[in-house]
């Protein structure tokens, strides 16, 4: 009950005109940076961090600037879906999984439905995780502490296991795609030995590693666009989508029918967000993988399945709340954006850690209250703007294609201000087109480049602990079961595939 009262007080503070205004402004900024390819919540929060000093000066508390930055974080989670669906370029790394089914749905003339599903799923995911956060923050923090290196590696292995289900039926091609992504992920300086790896021709651009966004924009912006131009689908992109009340009601119904994806995304996303070093991007990708793996009709994924939108969209919002938890209670950022938020809290004179909840209730509860408010604001703003987003799709593809191309170039440059990345992105685009023509699934490669850099140091740190003994992944109480389930998931389809090829399946 105490928690409920504290929350109520917090919501009241968050509803004060200044704070509410900051939440709305933050959501708008977030929607913009989220929807712009290349810019994500990290950029938005980092750029506006100095400005929060002014807000603090003006309002005299650390709560208001934090409400502003948290609203940007949420807004960006909503915004990322917009360009993923309408243009097929992931607006932010957190929205890559949304392109898998959002884009096909838009091409089939149902962009309005896809956008409504994305907005509502984001809202539900955000709200469910807010409730979990409010009710269980301290015990969940101790769960996060129990996750050492072997546990996180086991979880990553489980995520890789769901990949096998991501690539369709062609297991060898899926495995090739995963390995290709892992090789790309290992480029750059190795964290354990500090030595450079695969820095081809001594080009300095390789030394910072191949960034995930460069591959994602190349594959989904350039590669997919050319694929669409070459196939007949480009005609359907011109299809006229009209927003009607009936259409909206139908979209809501479709969202309700995609409840399974929303449920998986909300809980899995929140949990993955809790773990330090993970964050919203792996959360959304894993939710997509699990939704597909457990679906009755996995083959319809990638062709415009509503569950394929609701899972990643609810997950990225849930994960962004989840990532706030270790940041506030342990002082450990769960994602790149929370790392910047953490720096902000220290700059404003707060000490994140186990005592924050008890020593700074005046900061904590209004902030949590603002999470609820920001989510409501974000879903309303997002729904109101859907006609505008859909209007973009009415452009003929002959105009839309160059726009996508230019946005991909600008977005890649904007992310890190490095021309090398832009050339690499274009190269990946053509490579992706070639692989696509040869029928290789590309999503597993994109997943591998996200999870590889998380999994690898965890694997090596674990093996340092055990002096190279792999049994460390089986003997620990949390890591053991996860590892075993992951191995079963990986081996099952491989065995099935092998059996099917040795003797044809019975009818």
């Amino acid at each position, binding site marked *: 009950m105490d928690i409920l009262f504290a929350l109520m007080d917090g919501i009241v503070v968050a509803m004060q005109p200044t704070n509410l205004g900051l939440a709305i402004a933050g959501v708008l900024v977030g929607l913009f940076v989220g929807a712009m390819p*290349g810019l994500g919540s990290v950029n938005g929060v980092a750029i506006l*961090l*100095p400005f929060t000093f002014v807000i603090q000066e003006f309002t005299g508390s650390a709560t208001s600037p934090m409400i502003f930055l948290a609203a940007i974080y949420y807004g960006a989670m909503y915004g990322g879906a917009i360009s993923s669906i309408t243009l097929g370029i992931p607006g932010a790394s957190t929205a890559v999984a949304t392109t898998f089914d959002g884009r096909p749905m838009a091409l089939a003339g149902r962009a309005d439905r896809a956008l409504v599903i994305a907005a509502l799923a984001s809202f539900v995911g955000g709200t469910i995780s807010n409730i979990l956060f409010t009710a269980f923050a301290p015990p969940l923090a101790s769960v996060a502490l129990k996750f050492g290196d072997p546990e996180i590696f086991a979880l990553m292995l489980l995520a890789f296991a769901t990949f096998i289900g991501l690539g369709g039926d062609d297991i060898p091609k899926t495995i090739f795609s995963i390995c290709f992504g892992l090789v790309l992920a290992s480029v750059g300086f190795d964290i354990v030995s*500090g030595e450079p790896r695969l820095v081809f021709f001594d080009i300095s651009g390789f030394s910072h590693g191949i960034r995930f966004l460069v591959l994602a924009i190349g594959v989904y912006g350039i590669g997919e666009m050319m694929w669409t131009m070459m196939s007949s689908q480009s005609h359907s992109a011109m299809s006229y989508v009209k927003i009607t009340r009936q259409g909206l009601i139908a979209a809501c119904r479709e969202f309700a029918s995609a409840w399974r994806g929303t449920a998986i995304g909300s809980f899995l996303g929140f949990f993955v967000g809790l773990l330090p070093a993970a964050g919203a991007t792996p959360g959304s990708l894993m939710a997509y993988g699990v939704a597909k793996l457990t679906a009755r009709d996995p083959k319809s994924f990638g062709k415009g399945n509503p569950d394929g939108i609701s899972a990643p969209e609810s997950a990225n919002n849930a994960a962004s709340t989840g990532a706030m938890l270790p940041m506030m209670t342990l002082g*450990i*950022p769960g994602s790149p954006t929370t*790392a910047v938020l953490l*720096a*902000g809290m*220290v700059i404003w004179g707060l000490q994140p850690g186990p005592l924050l909840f008890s020593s700074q209730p005046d900061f904590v509860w209004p902030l949590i209250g603002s999470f609820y408010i920001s989510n409501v604001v974000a879903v309303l703003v997002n729904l109101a703007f859907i006609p505008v987003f859909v209007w973009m799709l009415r452009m003929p593809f002959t105009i839309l294609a160059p726009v996508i191309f230019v946005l991909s170039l600008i977005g890649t440059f904007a992310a890190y201000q490095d021309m090398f990345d832009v050339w690499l992105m274009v190269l990946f685009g053509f490579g992706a087109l070639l692989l696509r023509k040869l029928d290789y699934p590309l999503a597993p490669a994109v997943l591998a480049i996200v999870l590889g850099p998380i999994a690898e140091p965890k694997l090596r740190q674990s093996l340092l602990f055990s002096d190279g003994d792999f049994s460390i992944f089986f003997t620990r109480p949390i890591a053991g079961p996860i590892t075993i389930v992951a191995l079963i998931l990986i081996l099952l389809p491989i065995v099935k595939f092998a059996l099917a090829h040795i003797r044809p399946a019975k009818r």
Partner: protein
Amino acid sequence: MNKHMRSFLNTAGALALSLSVVTGPALAFEPDKPVEFVIMAGQGGGADKMARLIQSIIEKENLASRPLIPVNKPGGSGAEALTYMNSVSDPDHTVMVTLNSFFTTPLRQPGLGVDIMKFAPVGRMAEDTFLLWVHKDEGIKTFDEFVTAAKDRGREWVMGGTGKAAEDEIITDYLNNNYGLEIKYVPYKGGGEVAKQLAGRQITSSVNNPSEALGFYQSGDLIPLVAFTAERLPLFPEVPTLNEVGGNFVYSMQRAVVGPPGMSKEALAYYTDLFKKAYDTADWQTYKTKQSLMGNFMAGDDLSQYWSEQRVRHEAILKASGAIK
């Protein structure tokens, strides 16, 4: 950063410039575009927090005509940032926040072709300190108890730290070599993650900076045993220095701003002046006290002199531990 934001910041910068022409004395060098502020480490660590705070102070107090734009280059314990600075195209519009990897990484990787004495000594903002931490459930209260326990457990005792052959491993090596210990060292990406691993008892000890372990220290989960400083730290008056308990080792980390080789004299003078002003603000002084940062502002020849001493010292340390020949 997108174009919109950039043009907005430019306009804001231009406004600030026109103001400073009226109010302040004109300096020989003024940046004519936003200044890139390279951070030699990842987001959320001590160097990153410091860089973002300085950026915020400079904007808030209107100290510069053009904004600083932080860019993280964490690869290879600073190797990525150092090679970038070595060949940067516009040395007058780039500065970098450094750690001790500024000394160790070029020593370990001569192939990088980095000579730190060629870097421009803009200003040292502080020196960070190190303490030895254990979890409260370990039941250890003093350094002597630590030595006994670590000796008993041999390779089972795990020290977590940031990076390879960097500050934390240097201290671990010192403890191993001088107290007959066999502590195992496991590198992590950032000091915050190390503190979390220790709070969850995934590792047995750490040599975190005060700022990294402060939250868990206040909650009583982590206990500091000794400080690797010359004098006791004001924030931890009850914690003895290693020298008090019979050791002979003082180790600190520079938190300094440097310019790339080839920065002009005028630009160097401008940035030294800028960071000195930031150092003198109440915000920076408060932050320094709260995070238990030591050391005074140092620039120019003094800072170069400090670097050359530190380089000699680190070369000796790395040679003794076998990290370099």
